[in-house]
């Protein structure tokens, strides 16, 4: 049997029963939505999809299949924003098969046609799944980029004193970024004292300590003195337990102490006016 004509017969059948199928499809979908989208909206979206499916199947329209895929991708994205899981989205598409099958079951002729149709709907379901995964990947990549940018400010505390408040876990990528920003700021401002504040670093293990030491060494090569501050009691305990040595790098408890240290190194004194 010719595939095109089989699809054409299926399309004709579906066009004849459009209201019934879409109605049933919307019912099935609405049951799984649990009030996240209104029934009206579902009905409208499914009607659009349904007519695209028929257009794609009747084969008269070259662009229909592309439009259908775009519509499926759009549906997947909008569902993803409404906190649907990928399987919920795929099931929503698969529900079309159930809706059509209920009608086909009454007739005996359209069984091979229905099989072809079923395979096509499976393909659509998988397409929404893929789009969903791709959309999530994009969001995650954007977020991690934003976090990387947000989390590495270099601030000026005083003439010649700059500080880097480190917040979050310090991995190689972030260390690289922090180092670059710190060194650039040192050159740009001509500062000769840098304070690394690790109050916001949750844990300091040997790797993090290694990264800190690298940063300090790089800053020293530019002639800047470095102080590490914001070491919390638990962190101090871990550092000593792990046997990490900060060598001749000055460490202070708080940012205020570090600033006072930096000022005294610069020959300045802060006291009551």
């Amino acid at each position: 049997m010719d595939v095109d004509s089989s699809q054409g017969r299926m399309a004709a059948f579906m066009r004849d029963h459009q209201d019934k199928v879409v109605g049933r499809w919307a019912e099935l979908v609405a049951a799984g939505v649990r009030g996240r989208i209104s029934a009206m909206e579902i009905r409208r979206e499914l009607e659009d999809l349904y007519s695209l499916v028929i257009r794609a199947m009747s084969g008269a329209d070259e662009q229909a299949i592309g439009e259908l895929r775009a519509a499926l991708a759009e549906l997947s994205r909008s569902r993803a924003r409404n906190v649907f899981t990928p399987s919920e989205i795929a099931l929503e598409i698969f529900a079309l098969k159930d809706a059509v099958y209920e009608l086909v079951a009454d007739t005996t002729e359209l069984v091979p046609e229905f099989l072809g149709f079923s395979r096509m709907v499976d393909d659509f379901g998988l397409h929404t799944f893929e789009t969903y995964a791709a959309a999530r990947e994009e969001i995650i990549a954007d977020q991690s980029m934003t976090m990387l940018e947000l989390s590495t400010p270099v601030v000026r505390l005083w003439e010649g004193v700059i500080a880097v408040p480190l917040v979050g876990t310090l991995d190689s990528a972030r260390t690289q970024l922090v180092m670059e920003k710190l060194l650039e700021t040192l050159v740009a401002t001509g500062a000769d004292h840098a304070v690394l504040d690790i109050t916001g670093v949750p844990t300091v293990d040997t790797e993090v300590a290694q990264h800190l030491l690298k940063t300090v060494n790089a800053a020293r090569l530019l002639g800047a003195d470095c102080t590490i501050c914001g070491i919390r009691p638990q962190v101090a305990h871990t550092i000593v337990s792990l046997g990490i040595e900060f060598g001749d790098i000055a460490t202070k408890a708080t940012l205020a102490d570090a600033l006072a240290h930096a000022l005294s190194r610069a020959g300045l004194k802060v006291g009551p006016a």
Partner: protein
Amino acid sequence: MERVPIVKIGKTLFVSIQIDLQDESVLRLQEDLADELAATGATGVIIDITAVEIVDSFIGRMLTMIGSISRLFDAETVLVGMRPAVAITLTELGLSLRGVRTALNADKGLKLLNGSS
């Protein structure tokens, strides 16, 4: 082979490296500097590497050696004008240039020498 000029200003020898450092020219610089230190009795050496964009482990080690040689003549070495990218490379190579002091620019380097002597 290109040579790096050594300029004496007061009690300080000023070396500004403005060529692509080849291993040979670095060795030559070491010899020239030792000769100059012996002849002038300078107490400080400023090496300006503002124009240096690429540093490898050999050159890093040579800079440390220049520091050690100067110390034998009772002179202090200050390395000035290092670019951030160079600093990162040296750190990644694990070279911290012990025995060589560093400053952001020549001005600060001079202050460092005058302050310590």
